[in-house]
C-alpha cells in the first residue's frame, strides 16, 4: 500500500477503492471508540495576549520546512492588510503557518495577532477521511502525512474543520497535500519543540505535554481572571487538539469557529459506519458526514463577524 501512487490507483479502479476503504476506514472508525488522544502527546499553548505580530514564526517555518521563498520578505508587515477573496491570509502550500491581524474595538493594547496552522487534532478528520491512509497521528501528537501515498483527492480539505490542508499544484500530475507537521521529522520526533515555538521572541507559544499545558493554561487564567477569556480553545473542540489557544478577546472576534462542538468529526461519520459496515455504503455515509460538517462550517461563515476587521 505504501507504494500506491495515483496511476496505480486509477488502474485499480473501483475494486481497489472498495478494498482500501474497507480495511482502512472501517478499522480507523471503530478504533476511535476508545481513543481520546495519546496520553503523553505533546502540544502547544498559544497565548494571543503576548503576540506582537513580528512574523518570526512564519520565517522559522519557511526555513525549517525548506519551503519556497516567500512572495514578500517576512519583515514585511503590509501582508496583514492582504485579502484573498475578502478573506485574511490562510495557510498555503508555501506557508504552513500565517499570522493575521485583528483590529479589536476599544482594545487598549491595540490589535490582536493570531497565528494560524494545523491544530493537530486528537482525532483528525483528515485522517479519518483519507481512504489511502496517507495520514498518521503520531504518539508525540503530530498529524503527519505520507506524500508518496497521497493521490490528491482533496477529501481531507473538505473534512478539515479548520480549513488547513493546502494543495501543491507545482506537480500537476500528482498534486499532494501540504500542511504543518509540527516539525515532526526534524524536531518533535527528537523531543524538541517546533521551529516556530523556538523562534518566537515573546514566547507566545508554550510547548509541553498536552495534559500539562491544559493545567498551565487554566492556572494562568485563574491567576489573571480579569485578563483572560475563561476558555482554552482546543481543549475540548472537536475532541481536543494538540494546539490550544488563550485570549483576552472572545474567540469569535479572532475568526475562530466556536460552533464546532466537542465531538470529533469522526463521530459524525462513524455512526453510519457502525450501522452498515458495508463497503459501498461507506461513501454516501462519509459524504453525509461531510455534509453535516459543511453545514456547521457554513453556519459559522454566514455569521456576521463582530469585530471590525
Amino acid at each position, binding site marked *: 500500500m505504501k507504494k500506491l501512487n495515483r496511476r496505480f490507483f486509477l488502474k485499480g479502479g473501483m475494486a481497489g477503492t472498495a478494498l482500501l476503504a474497507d480495511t482502512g476506514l472501517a478499522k480507523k472508525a471503530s478504533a476511535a471508540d476508545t481513543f481520546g488522544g495519546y496520553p503523553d502527546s505533546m502540544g502547544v499553548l498559544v497565548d494571543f495576549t*503576548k503576540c*506582537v505580530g*513580528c*512574523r*518570526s514564526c512564519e*520565517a*522559522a517555518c*519557511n*526555513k525549517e520546512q525548506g519551503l519556497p*521563498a*516567500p*512572495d*514578500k*520578505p*517576512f*519583515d*514585511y508587515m503590509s501582508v496583514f492588510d492582504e485579502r*484573498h477573496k475578502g478573506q485574511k491570509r*490562510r495557510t*498555503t*502550500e*508555501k506557508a504552513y503557518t500565517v499570522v493575521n491581524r485583528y483590529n479589536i474595538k476599544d482594545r487598549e*493594547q491595540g490589535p490582536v495577532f493570531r497565528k494560524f496552522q494545523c491544530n493537530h487534532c486528537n482525532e483528525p478528520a483528515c485522517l479519518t477521511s483519507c481512504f489511502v491512509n496517507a495520514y498518521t497521528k503520531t504518539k508525540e501528537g503530530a498529524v503527519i502525512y505520507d506524500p508518496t501515498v497521497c493521490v490528491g483527492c482533496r477529501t481531507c480539505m473538505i473534512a478539515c474543520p479548520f480549513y488547513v490542508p*493546502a494543495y501543491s*499544484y507545482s506537480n500537476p500530475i500528482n498534486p499532494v497535500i501540504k500542511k504543518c507537521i509540527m516539525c515532526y521529522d526534524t524536531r518533535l520526533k527528537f*523531543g*524538541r*519543540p517546533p521551529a516556530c*515555538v*523556538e523562534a*518566537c*521572541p*515573546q*514566547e507566545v507559544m*508554550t*510547548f*509541553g*505535554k498536552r495534559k*500539562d499545558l491544559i493545567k*498551565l493554561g487554566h*492556572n*494562568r487564567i485563574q*491567576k*489573571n481572571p480579569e485578563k483572560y477569556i475563561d476558555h482554552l480553545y482546543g481543549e475540548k473542540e472537536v475532541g481536543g487538539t494538540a494546539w490550544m489557544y488563550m485570549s483576552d478577546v472572545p474567540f469569535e472576534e479572532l475568526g475562530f469557529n466556536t460552533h464546532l462542538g466537542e465531538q470529533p468529526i469522526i463521530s459524525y461519520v462513524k455512526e453510519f459506519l457502525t450501522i452498515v459496515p458495508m463497503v459501498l455504503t461507506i461513501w454516501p455515509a462519509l459524504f453525509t458526514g461531510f455534509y453535516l460538517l459543511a453545514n456547521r462550517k457554513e453556519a459559522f461563515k454566514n455569521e456576521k463577524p463582530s469585530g471590525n476587521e
Partner: protein
Amino acid sequence: MTRTRNTFLVIMITLALSGWPPVFGQAETGPDSAELDTLAQLYDAVAFDHAAHVEMVEGNCARCHHHTTGVAPTNPKCLRCHPGGQEADSMACKDCHSEKRFESAYLAEIAANTDRFHTDIPGLKGAYHRNCLGCHQESGGPTGCADCHARNEKGDAFFSSGKYAPKSPQKTSGH
C-alpha cells in the same frame, strides 16, 4: 504610571516597617551598562544602558529584577506570597530563565521537581522581551525589532529580507 508609583510607595512602606536597610554595597545600582549576548544569533548583542534604566525606574530595581534584590516585587499578585521580597542567589535573568526552555531535558527537570511552585516560567528570550518590550510599549521606549539589536546577515537570510529578499514578487498561486 500611577500604579508604579503606588507600588513604589508600598515598597518603601514595607521596607520601613521591616527595618530593612538597603545594603547594596558595590551592587547598589548594578553595572553601568551590560552587553546582552547570551542568545545572539540572528541579531547582534544588545547594548543595554543599565544606569539609564535604573534612573528611569527611580531605583525600583524590582521592575526588572523582580524581587531578587531583596526589594519587594512590584506586581501585586506576587506580593501575596513574597511580601518582603527575599533576596535571591542570583540577579542574572539567565540563571532562572532557561535558554532552552522547551528542550526535553528542561521539561523533564520541571516535571521531576515537585517542590517547585512556579512551573510557568518563561525562557530567557521570553523573559527579556516581555520585560523590555513590554515596558517600552507602555512607556514609549523603542519597540522596533532593530531598535535594541541590529539584525545581522544570518537574520536577513532568516527573514528573506535585505539582500535575501525575493527577487521578483511572484503572483500568489490560485487560492
